[in-house]
């Protein structure tokens, strides 16, 4: 940040994911902060009408929450087809195969009786008020009294939807606006009307929050609500200004993406992603419903290029013909990226942007830069942020809701007010005045200050009256970011920190780059164990608010050591890891892992050593070491053997647990959700799953506290393994993969060591293999592999490209 005056804006992007930021006065609107009701509240069965992309995705996500869901479509067979298509979609709408069985597809013509016992009916049909109203009349005839009906409309005002509806229907009605794809996008905009029952809105809010994991943002009944109103304005400005300032689309996206904390698709890449043909629809709908002097409407212009792309069927990635960007094959068969020239409309080879302004890492410096990149950033920011600032209180009463909506609905790292804090509101106001633009009231109010500040360790946001108040957190939400602001630090080093999260529970946080595991993290685990033994806390939670729990061990360190042949150092690092995780497992206090995002390799091994795990549903867990030519060396092999050996449904004998562990580790399979992780035994059947990420830490903490009373650490346990005969069996299976061309020469080397470790080395299967012995085998195999050229080549390739080498 260039500005040296004032408090840093909230660390709201990246590390801190959006919290449900609900200002107290909003509760009166009809969406009370959910109380601690059981997950799902009163909603036990859901129906979704309309099996388009949104409707089908919403139904799938309700099933993810374990709730039986009816999916009806007006086209005969449409719902069943949508269901079948979703099974093949990537990213997957379903979190696991079993969820799909909870969805009952049907036709609208015959399926209405299926709605009779549904507690919540979501309408996601065509965006036409007459069609929706006609459907509501049908629904009203069959739905049970007190069931909630909501529309997923993104453009039609609630008042228009309720024209002609009965009072009872109006009392049970609201708008629930999901973002695409419904499983992955965390924003849910809720609009209630004057007639909406408070408890109906509360039930939907509780369900969406706890069962579906959404951050529910109450919005006013205004066109486009919050996110699409501001997002639409932003896209329009970003296109218009790129054309006016003569930027290439690559330049525009480079400026409009990462430097502003916006996904790297920028604006043109985003339009290709969502579909260019959506633009005229959104614009028409906004034009029809907003006043003619609204800045959004004033900025609308005919865009011949967009019209031509749509006419040619080049609507973006979905159509296969590309959009602003296309892919073409070169003479040599290489895939080449091409881009549309905004002025000539011709395709040309894509060019890497060369703008001096892109080398700035500060938003104000970027906006002040004299080159066209800087002028572009400045123009779009002035348009967009001034517009957003002017929408308080039109779309929402508080700035925090606006910021949360943009973070969660558009994946911005910072919302408009957080961006303003980064730029400096006073500077921004001056810039507006310099161009003769109007200054919105909230910007007048903030003056020389900031929209957010930290006061006495608590994050506060400015209200419209100019005073700052604490951001309320819903009951059951505990954010590590809040803990950290309050500064309850117990210990810290370069890669990890230990925080007091209250009630005698400590939280171990990884802080290294991408939360990769390194010696500092291991020593912090060791330190936590010794502090816990001395009674510094009663239970430990391992959690962080990074995008990923941990991407695995820092293989760069291992490569460095290997390159200077520091084998002793590497082996002691492996041993340090084994010791740290074992000491944690056998510590006299409960340890609960609370992952979200990726937990791979060493990160997965940390979880495997926890006494329990409370996982965010969107956790992607796996032992992926073979991708870099290694095997799990911190007890991961041992843990998987133990878990499969204890699995009740596996056939008896020494081989089945080994075969299961081998199959999973040798293919580096990653669970695509916490539910899948349970199927793979990466999570235990008793481990918990939290749908709402903001509730993860609190639920992990509660789980840890529940284990404190009478806690006894697990005893080390020997296990019976098949020995060399088992290894021979695994080698046969590998040989078949070689013949099929699925296993590379170095895969065979890695699998050989993995098989030797998992089968218990030279030990005969009439004898037991101890944990010490297994850990020694893991270490041996790990070290032997690290000394092979094939493994070093894999490590180097992964570090250079981020992808596994198939050698």
């Amino acid at each position, binding site marked *: 940040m260039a500005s040296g005056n004032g408090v840093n804006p909230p660390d709201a992007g990246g590390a801190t994911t959006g919290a449900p930021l609900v200002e107290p006065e909003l509760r009166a609107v009809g969406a009370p902060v959910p109380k601690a009701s059981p997950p799902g509240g009163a909603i036990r069965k859901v129906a979704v009408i309309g099996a388009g992309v949104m409707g089908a995705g919403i139904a799938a996500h309700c099933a993810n929450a374990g709730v039986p869901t009816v999916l009806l479509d007006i086209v005969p067979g449409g719902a069943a087809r949508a269901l079948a298509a979703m099974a093949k979609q990537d990213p997957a709408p379903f979190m696991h195969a079993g969820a799909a069985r909870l969805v009952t597809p049907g036709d609208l013509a015959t399926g209405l009786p299926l709605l009779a016992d549904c507690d919540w009916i979501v309408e996601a049909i065509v965006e036409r008020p007459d069609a929706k109203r006609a459907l509501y009349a049908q629904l009203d005839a069959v739905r049970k009294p007190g069931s909630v009906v909501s529309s997923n409309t993104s453009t039609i005002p609630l008042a228009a939807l309720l024209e002609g509806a009965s009072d009872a229907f109006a009392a049970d009605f609201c708008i629930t606006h999901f973002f695409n794809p419904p499983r992955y996008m965390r924003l849910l905009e809720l609009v209630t009307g004057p007639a909406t029952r408070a408890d109906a809105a509360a039930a939907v809010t509780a369900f969406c929050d706890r069962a579906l994991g959404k951050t529910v943002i109450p919005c006013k009944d205004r066109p486009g609500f919050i996110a699409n109103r501001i997002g639409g304005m932003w896209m329009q400005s970003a296109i218009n200004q790129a054309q006016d300032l003569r930027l290439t689309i690559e330049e525009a996206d480079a400026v409009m993406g990462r430097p502003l904390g916006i996904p790297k698709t920028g604006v043109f890449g985003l339009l290709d992603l969502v579909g260019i043909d959506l633009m005229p629809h959104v614009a028409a709908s906004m034009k029809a419903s907003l006043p003619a002097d609204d800045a959004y409407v004033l900025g609308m212009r005919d865009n011949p290029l967009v019209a031509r792309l749509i006419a040619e069927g080049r609507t973006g990635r979905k159509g296969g013909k590309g959009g602003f960007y296309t892919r073409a094959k070169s003479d040599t068969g290489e895939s080449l990226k091409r881009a549309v020239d905004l002025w000539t409309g011709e395709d040309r080879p894509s060019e890497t942007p060369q703008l001096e302004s892109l080398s700035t890492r500060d938003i104000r410096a970027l906006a002040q830069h004299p080159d066209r990149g800087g002028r572009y950033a400045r123009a779009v920011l002035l348009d967009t942020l001034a517009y957003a600032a002017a929408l308080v209180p039109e779309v929402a009463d508080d700035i925090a809701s606006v910021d949360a909506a943009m973070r969660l609905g558009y994946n911005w790292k910072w919302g408009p007010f957080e961006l303003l804090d980064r730029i400096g509101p006073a500077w921004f106001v001056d810039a507006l005045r310099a161009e003769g633009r109007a200054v919105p009231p909230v910007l007048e109010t903030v003056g020389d200050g900031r929209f957010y500040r930290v006061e006495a360790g608590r994050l506060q946001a400015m209200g419209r009256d100019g005073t700052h108040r604490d951001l309320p957190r819903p009951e059951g939400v505990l954010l590590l970011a809040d803990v950290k602001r309050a500064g309850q630090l117990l210990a810290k080093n370069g890669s990890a920190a230990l925080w007091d999260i209250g009630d005698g529970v400590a939280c171990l946080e990884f802080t290294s780059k991408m939360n990769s595991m390194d010696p500092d993290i291991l020593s912090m685990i060791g330190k936590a164990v010794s502090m816990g033994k001395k009674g510094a806390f009663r239970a430990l939670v391992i959690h962080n608010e990074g995008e990923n729990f941990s991407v695995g061990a820092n293989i760069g360190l291992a490569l460095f050591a290997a390159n200077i042949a520091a084998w002793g150092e590497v082996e002691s690092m492996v041993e340090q890891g084994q010791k740290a995780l074992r000491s944690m497992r056998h510590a006299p206090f409960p340890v609960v892992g609370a992952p979200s995002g990726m937990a791979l390799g060493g990160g997965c091994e940390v979880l495997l050593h926890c006494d329990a795990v409370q996982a965010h549903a969107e956790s992607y867990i796996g032992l992926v070491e073979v991708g870099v030519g290694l095997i799990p060396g911190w007890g991961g092999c041992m843990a998987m053997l133990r878990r499969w050996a204890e699995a009740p449904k596996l*056939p*008896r*004998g*020494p*081989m*089945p647990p080994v075969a299961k562990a081998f199959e999973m580790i040798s293919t580096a399979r990653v669970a695509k959700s916490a539910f899948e992780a349970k199927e793979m035994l990466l999570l235990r059947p008793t481990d918990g799953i939290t749908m709402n990420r903001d509730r993860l830490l609190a639920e992990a903490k509660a789980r840890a506290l529940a284990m404190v009373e009478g806690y006894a650490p697990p005893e080390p346990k020997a296990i019976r393994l*098949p020995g*060399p*005969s*088992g*290894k*021979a*069996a695994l*080698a*046969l299976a590998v*040989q*078949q993969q070689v*013949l*099929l*061309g*699925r296993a590379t020469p170095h895969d065979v080397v890695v699998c050989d060591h993995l098989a030797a470790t998992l089968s218990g080395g030279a030990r005969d*299967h009439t004898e037991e293999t101890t944990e010490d012995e297994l850990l020694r085998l893991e270490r041996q195999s790990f070290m032997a592999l690290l000394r092979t050229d094939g493994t070093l080549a894999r490590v180097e390739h992964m570090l250079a490209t981020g992808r596994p080498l198939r050698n």
Partner: protein
Amino acid sequence: MTEIVIAAYRRSPFHFAHKGALVKLRPDEMAAQVVRALLDDTGVDPATIEDVVVGCAFPEGEQGLNVAKLIAFLAKLPESVAGATVNRFCGSSMQSVHQAAGAIMMGAGEAFLCAGVESMSRVPMMGFNPLPHPGLAESFPQAYMGMGETAENVARRHQVTRADQEAFAAESHRRAAAAQAEGRLAGEIAPVTVGGATVDGDGCIRPDTTAEGLAGLKPAFRADGTVTAGTSSPLTDGAAALLVCTMDYARAHGLSPLAKVKSVAVAGCAPEVMGMGPVDASRKALARAGITAKELDLVELNEAFASQAIACIRELGLDGAKVNLDGGAIALGHPLGATGARIVGKAAALLQREGGRYALASQCIGGGQGIATVLEAV
């Protein structure tokens, strides 16, 4: 000399393992239902049965312990009837017939129930705990070679092209589909009940199979190979049973025997081309019967893979038109332990249906051997 006859033959419907109609049926229960149906057909007093000899390639889990005796209990045979489980992999239930014939020749009994069973859904190929001898796996890996790889080896050594294999597989389906459509399979099938539902027809036959369609499949075992899932027998659930007895016993019980057992043989071969096992075994059995391949009126040659079936037909100089009249294992399925009883029973039944004097039933066997039986019309 005592005449040994195949007095009766029944089998369960054959269905794909893992996805077919018999997935949920325990193999012991499946075999017991078939044995019971066979006994009910013949009307013989079960107390006159000496032994129940059941072939099974992976006799563990639900087809483990001594499953033959358990099947006897399940089929409500009297306690006086004995039971032995026999394993010669794919040749297991043909081996049951051979053992019964040998016992009869020794005067060690008059009537035997020779059955075979395999639920490839419920007991995996290789078993639950494969534990190969590490030294042998190292020094002589072909002892444990996967079956698909041996099929590729046969295709290479005997120059069986992919097109040949696909034409053969398509013909197998064509014949099986015709036999099914014309009701020629119904007589041999003993319907089984699975969870209250009756399954009375085969599930593996794909009547719409064409050589062109098969040409689109990917190699199943070698990236550069010619053998596909379409030219291999599928993993199958099924059971089969025969009544093997003396001619005198058959007559005394009012049975009309299907065929006489003329000669039997087994022979080892190189395990890496185990599919060629029928060649030496058949030559030995034919020599023991005192006939040549030319004198055979029909043949049941198990189609583990099209490549090995074609190579064996060529090597033995068989007339393809006389081999597997109602289709083979590529179309019908190959429940390992049950196939031997099926093809002996089928050859015997065909001899009765089609006329002629001699029939041959032969199979290849994983690990490197073959087994053969020559039947003669009654």
